């Protein structure tokens, strides 16, 4: 298989404009003859569904929650980047492009990232017009902040709830189209397979989560906007329902999976408190603007936040400030996370588990006063207190890195189409524009860029080239796919084993975290592979799922998702094994600089690893899309 990224020719800044001109158009009167299926109604899906419906296409949209408003995008806190340069501080489309490429450790496509930076400005206009209440200055104009160590203030935000406000904006646009009858919305409905007819994606199989009924839906194109797969680690900052099922089933139908091992671990999360832990809570990265990260110089097992005050200044190691004097506590996420792990691995971690470092606001409170700190971070401090039961005004917070975002996903070309014709992937579900590491405030930007401003153009090019004829769901392809799904469900229900789904999922998560988490080794990854295969056997012979298919059965839903996570886990390990360099969120211990920083290998690994499914229990085949850097000179990232 030859991977064709369809990157347009020409100068970087003109590629998208030219490409838009070259794309075929669907005549306005003909648009209503095409049906588009949109799976997922988070930022990417809701914006796409609304925009396509506005153009005149008939859209069917699906989500597994009871309402599109609850998609995981709602949880994003910090903000969204856009190259508006409202602050006159030297920002530009090119600078946003450059920062994003560099932040991604030079593992993203230049053309895509530049397009992302270009349309970023339109996103803000669109959202404001929808009534998204972004933060404003007293003069009434939009406010910005700098985020994630960027040197310009280009992040737009709505208090600590930017994702919520953006999603509610997209949700309102979607609602308008639902009311217009142009979008038919299916909630509490999970997609369980893609249906191909003559090699093209022409429909999906879904399960109604309330009644268990399986249904076929046909359309001219299928968009997967189903989010990221961080929950393969069981513990992550993702919502409990976030899953890889849609992407994975598409992968098994022929869509290549890009860079599965690229995982982002966020440094400022609330540490695990016990075996009961069900998910991890992120606290905005903005805390690192004022908080200082430290551990004791000599190991003090079990050190609590209350006792921290008694540790004299001389016995504290502010390790980020020590190692990275110029960026200090504001180094990118991957660097901050890895260093916290290193401290804990040395035994200098704090708290009852030893898996935490301090984030100390004592100096900020001394300098600016408690009031000022409360004004900036009050809601985060409350959240911390609510969850941990510790008062962060009195002692330092404890933080530990947690899985947060997955840069990997379905491989797509410049038009966002996967390797299956007619099957698109948008938002976090695609392998995206973030390379090996995502900068803060750029996922929201990408999701909305894909949905509002890319897919409405690129899908027309495909639809204009295919027949308007609808395919019937009576075709054998649908029947076959449905039977297969039915079989999987029955198999799971008939195992009647002893291990609960959560137990097995936790076990998978632990394997992934220990061997394919913040740092990875050849030996560890090989061990992990064996363990995952073992776990897969255990799952298919010993999982306990009660009840039937014909009812709301949350254990069954979880079981099907975990089954897919297990298979994905193995592919992530394969990908991590293959990539013997370190880059961004992927740190191979074998590949580091003398002072322990990630060491990239551009000669051998400047490619997107796209994996092809070859059949159950068969090794997947690697395809490489070379990344050509025509416009930017690659350098070793340094934050010293």
């Amino acid at each position, binding site marked *: 298989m030859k991977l064709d990224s369809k990157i347009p020719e020409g100068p970087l800044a003109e590629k998208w404009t030219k490409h838009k001109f070259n794309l075929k158009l669907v005549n306005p009167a003909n648009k209503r003859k095409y049906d588009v299926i949109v799976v997922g109604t988070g930022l990417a899906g809701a914006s796409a569904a609304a925009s396509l419906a506005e153009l005149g296409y008939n859209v069917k949209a699906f989500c597994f929650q009871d309402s599109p408003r609850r*998609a995981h995008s709602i949880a994003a806190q910090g903000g969204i980047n856009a190259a*508006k340069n409202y602050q006159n501080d030297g920002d530009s489309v090119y600078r946003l492009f450059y920062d994003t490429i560099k932040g991604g450790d030079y593992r993203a496509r230049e053309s895509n990232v530049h397009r992302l930076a270009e349309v970023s400005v339109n996103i803000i206009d669109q959202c404001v017009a929808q009534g998204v209440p972004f933060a404003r200055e007293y003069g009434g104009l939009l406010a910005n902040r700098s985020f994630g160590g960027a040197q310009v203030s280009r992040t737009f935000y709505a208090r600590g709830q930017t994702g919520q406000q953006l999603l509610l904006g997209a949700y309102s646009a979607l609602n308008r189209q639902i009311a217009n009858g142009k979008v038919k919305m299916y909630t509490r409905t999970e997609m369980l397979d893609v249906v191909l007819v003559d090699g093209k994606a022409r429909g999906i199989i879904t399960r109604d989560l*309330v009644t268990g009924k399986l249904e076929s839906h046909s359309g001219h194109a299928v968009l997967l906007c189903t989010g990221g797969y961080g929950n393969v680690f069981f513990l992550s900052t993702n919502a409990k*329902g976030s899953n890889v099922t849609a992407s994975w089933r598409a992968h098994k139908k022929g869509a290549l999976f890009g860079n599965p091992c690229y995982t982002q671990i966020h440094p400022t999360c609330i540490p695990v408190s016990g075996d009961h832990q069900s998910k991890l809570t992120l606290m905005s990265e903005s805390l690192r603007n004022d908080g200082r990260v430290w551990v004791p110089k000599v190991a003090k097992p079990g050190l609590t936040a209350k006792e921290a005050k008694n540790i004299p200044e001389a016995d504290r190691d502010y390790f980020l400030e020590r190692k990275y004097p110029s960026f200090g506590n504001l180094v990118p996420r991957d660097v901050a996370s890895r260093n916290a792990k290193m401290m804990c691995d040395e035994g200098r971690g704090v708290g009852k588990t030893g898996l935490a470092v301090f984030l100390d606001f004592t100096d900020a409170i001394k300098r600016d006063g408690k009031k000022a700190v409360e004004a900036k971070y009050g809601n985060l401090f409350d959240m911390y207190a609510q969850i941990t039961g510790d008062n962060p005004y009195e002692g330092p917070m404890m933080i530990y890195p947690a899985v947060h975002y997955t840069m990997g996903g379905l491989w797509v070309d410049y038009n966002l189409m996967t390797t299956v014709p007619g099957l698109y992937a948008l938002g976090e579900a695609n392998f995206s524009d973030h390379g090996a590491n995502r900068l803060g405030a750029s996922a929201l930007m990408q999701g909305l860029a894909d949905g509002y401003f890319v897919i409405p153009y690129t899908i027309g090019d495909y639809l204009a080239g295919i027949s308007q004829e609808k395919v019937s769901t009576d075709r054998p392809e649908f029947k076959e796919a449905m039977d297969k799904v039915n079989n999987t469900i029955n198999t799971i229900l008939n195992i009647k084993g002893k291990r609960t789904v959560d137990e097995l999922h936790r076990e998978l998560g632990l394997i992934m975290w220990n061997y394919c988490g913040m740092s990875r080794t050849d030996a560890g990854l090989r061990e992990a592979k064996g363990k995952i295969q073992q776990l897969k056997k255990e799952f298919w012979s010993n999982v*306990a799922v009660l*009840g039937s298919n014909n009812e*709301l059965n*949350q254990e069954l839903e979880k079981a099907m998702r975990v089954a897919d996570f297990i298979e994905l886990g193995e592919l992530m390990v394969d990908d991590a094994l293959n990539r013997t360099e370190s880059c961004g969120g992927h740190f191979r211990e074998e590949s580091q600089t003398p002072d322990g920083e990630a060491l990239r290998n551009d000669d051998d690994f400047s490619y997107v690893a796209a994996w092809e499914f070859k059949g159950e229990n068969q090794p997947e085949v690697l395809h490489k899309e070379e990344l050509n850097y025509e416009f930017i000179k690659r350098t070793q990232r340094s934050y010293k």
Partner: protein
Amino acid sequence: MNLLNGLKEATNNMKITLKVWRQKNNATKGGFKVYPIEHVSTDMSFLEMLDVLNNDLVRKGEDAVAFDHDCREGICGMCSLYINGKPHGPQQTTTCQLHMRSFKDGDTITVEPWRAKAFPVIRDLVVDRTAFDRIQQAGGYVSINTGGVPDANEIPIPKKIADEAFDAAVCIGCGACVAACKNASAMLFVSAKVSQLALLPQGKPERKERAEKMVAQMDAEGFGACTNTGACEAECPKGISLTNIARLNREYLSASLTSYEVEVKGGD
């Protein structure tokens, strides 16, 4: 900062008795079942405690208790349990952010689904809140298409107004207001959206129509009439204020008296 005062020493050895509403589906009758549960840690969230219960139940061959949840961060609005006579339990937060340190060793905790005619029970503690979506679909938007909009800074919005709109916009659509209200009124929820868009210049052109359509849909869904008891505000995890309800009343009244006729679609 009230929550900081009552912080208790951590333990992982509380005994709790749970009285949980079980109902197979909407067509069958439900009832309470009692489950003793041991070794509850004060650090657990309420939902984590239910996870423990569910895993125990499955191991014993009993169906797990169905409940809605997703983000577990207090923002998606999916979690919705009526705990000891209050929506989202004793603290003014979401169920997922409620922790077991809010309870005492030996406590009996009664867990019920949201109760409202417009929120029928689907199973156990899961209810159908799509009525909320239909209300939003009736008019909770600004009618603009993607693209072709003015520059974001073209219309300055006074910070005060933007902040007030924001305060209304933070509603998470959880339905605690309905669950708390003796009239099962959805006014706080509806008023939050109407307020947000009535305050912002972008929402002004359609404000009359919006208020009329959303209220008509709210009525069609079978929610009760507001009698200003204030239970919604007291229980809303996001602190949506009653001021919004007054604004909705004002918007609706002035719309009724001055708008052009609008077509209203019935609910179900």
